[in-house]
């Protein structure tokens, strides 16, 4: 084996790791003062370097029996994760004041980058061992980011809840992996798929996949493994919440789609109405249905905008899993496409919520009143993000949802009633429900008068830049979805 070859294939990861170590060093050297601008500059430079390494790095390669995989798809998603993290950093670390946690900006940034490193590894591997270690790295860094927040008490509770739910999910994931290993004799997804294609499937394999689904369900906050999400989204420091809601979720869907469709296409089963067959598809269908209903209905009752976004995120997990049930190339494309635009929209929404929180000290619906006048850029991008999440044309959310539901209906024999019609009908209904609570927020932003006594929220320069980028991505992709769809399509052709 050639270590140089290995290094050349993991240059983005190395860039992120080195940047994180530099930041840790800066944290030690700077004591509790921590220069905010310097931290932000180093973080942005490191992410930029990593992005360059992805773009100009090797185009394909499969090292160490699938431990390190570089192909068009992994490069695309590594670039997306890096861009989302860059957005999170720029949006949410403005000028060094990191929420109620002054002076720990360097360590916070380092943990953000280490969590990102975990996700990059997860995206770029087909080996269950590396997948597990990468997920654990991301989880541990995020638990710590959540607990680092203001010493007001609530965040640490959220961290504890997050930690226990995450650890139980990790145990289930691991137990599932051990059954998968036992049934196939391998921990390499490609080998597993080959073994499964050649041999009859034993019941312990679906069992293992089912147990692993519990772990993945936690990662994408699908009901009933979602209980950590509202608390964490609400009480985590803004950068951590933004990261969990965007990059972490994108990586979660990427890995769910890859593992289920590539590794275990054989044990899919069927969730078609009247033709249920055991496998992972019915399980995913149940998760999808529960997530859509619980997430969207609970969002109606929320007063805190971040809790509302958390429940809306749970609902969106349901929408995305709906398409995954169909498990064909079209479905994978729709799932990956929608997870990317969901990541962008939710980063924008969390960014604006974070700005309001900083200015007002709370994020109740009333605190957003008058935002349209005091901070037009933030209000505008919030409107774009929420309407895109709601799926209104011409924003990209409409196109993405259309793709998801079309993919879900495309499975099954042509000419008959599509088997997943029940799920898609439910999704459409819940999509309509979601429009109501998004509009509730926007009504406050644009039509409610700003309270006279409170400090108005103002746009910051870095924040405005990210706002503009996120907003233009949402509009541009809505008008020209092929900008992302075509590379995605090309990348998927190599896989299927």
């Amino acid at each position, binding site marked *: 084996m050639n270590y140089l070859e290995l290094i050349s294939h993991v240059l983005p990861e190395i860039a992120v790791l080195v940047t994180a170590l530099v930041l840790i060093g800066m944290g030690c050297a700077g004591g509790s003062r921590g220069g905010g601008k310097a931290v932000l500059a180093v973080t942005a430079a490191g992410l930029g370097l990593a992005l360059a390494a992805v773009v100009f790095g090797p185009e394909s390669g499969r090292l160490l029996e699938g431990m390190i995989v570089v192909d068009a798809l992994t490069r695309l998603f590594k670039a997306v994760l890096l861009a989302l993290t860059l957005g999170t950093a720029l949006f949410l670390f403005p000028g060094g004041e990191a929420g109620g946690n002054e002076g720990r900006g360097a360590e916070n940034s380092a943990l953000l980058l280490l969590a990102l490193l975990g996700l990059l590894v997860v995206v770029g591997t087909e080996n*269950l*061992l590396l997948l*597990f*270690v990468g997920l*654990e790295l991301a989880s*541990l860094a995020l*638990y*710590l980011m959540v*607990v680092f927040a203001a*010493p007001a*008490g609530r965040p*640490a*509770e959220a*961290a*504890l*809840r997050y*930690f*226990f739910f995450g*650890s*139980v999910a*990790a*145990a*289930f994931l*691991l*137990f599932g*992996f*051990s*059954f998968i*290993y*036992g049934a196939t*004799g*391998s*921990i390499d997804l490609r080998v597993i798929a080959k073994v499964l294609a050649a041999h009859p499937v034993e019941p312990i394999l679906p069992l293992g996949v089912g147990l692993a689904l519990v772990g993945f369900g936690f990662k994408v906050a699908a009901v009933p493994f*979602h*209980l950590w999400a*509202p608390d964490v989204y609400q009480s985590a420091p803004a950068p951590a919440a933004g990261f969990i809601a965007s990059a972490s979720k994108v990586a979660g869907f990427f890995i769910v789609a890859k593992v289920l469709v590539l590794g275990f296409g054989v044990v899919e089963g069927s969730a078609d109405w009247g033709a249920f067959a055991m496998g992972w598809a019915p399980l995913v269908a149940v998760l999808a249905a529960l997530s859509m209903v619980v997430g969207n209905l*609970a969002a109606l009752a929320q007063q805190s905008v971040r809790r509302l976004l958390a429940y809306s995120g749970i609902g969106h997990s349901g929408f995305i899993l709906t398409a995954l049930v169909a498990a064909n190339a079209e479905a994978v494309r729709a799932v990956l496409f929608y997870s990317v635009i969901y990541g962008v929209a939710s980063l924008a929404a969390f960014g604006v919520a974070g700005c309001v929180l900083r200015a007002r000290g709370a994020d109740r619906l009333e605190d957003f009143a008058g935002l349209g006048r005091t901070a037009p850029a933030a209000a505008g991008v919030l409107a774009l993000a929420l309407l895109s999440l709601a799926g209104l044309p011409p924003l990209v959310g409409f196109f993405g949802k259309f793709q998801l539901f079309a993919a879900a209906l495309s499975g099954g024999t042509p000419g008959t009633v599509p088997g997943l019609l029940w799920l898609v009908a439910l999704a459409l209904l819940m999509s309509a429900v979601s429009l109501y609570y998004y509009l509730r927020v926007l009504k406050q932003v644009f039509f409610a008068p700003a309270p006279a006594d409170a400090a108005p929220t103002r746009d910051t320069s870095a924040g405005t830049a990210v706002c503009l980028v996120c907003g233009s991505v949402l509009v541009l992709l809505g008008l020209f979805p092929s900008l992302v769809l075509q590379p995605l399509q090309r990348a998927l052709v190599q896989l299927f």
Partner: protein
Amino acid sequence: MTIGIEHILAVSGLLFVIGFFGVLLRRNTLVVFMSLELMLNAAMLALVGFSFFNATMEGNVFVLFIIAVAAAEVAVGLAIIVALFRRRHTVQLEELVSLKG
């Protein structure tokens, strides 16, 4: 009667279920923590057992890494619990976390 993989899996499965039961039922965060470790140990036992009966080494290598990761997880978890205790002076779960979703 020879001991086969099914016996290993019975022990592992029972241990996992006992751990899960403990996580669901116990109220002291540290006991919940211990139960969590039982679940992890059960998963590792299954891996070692499969490694033995499949006669491949991957399972054993996997377990070696899990032990290392679990050590890090314990450090982080206990750090969170101690940090919480210093603020709230309790380690009882229901006094720390209100269980409404």
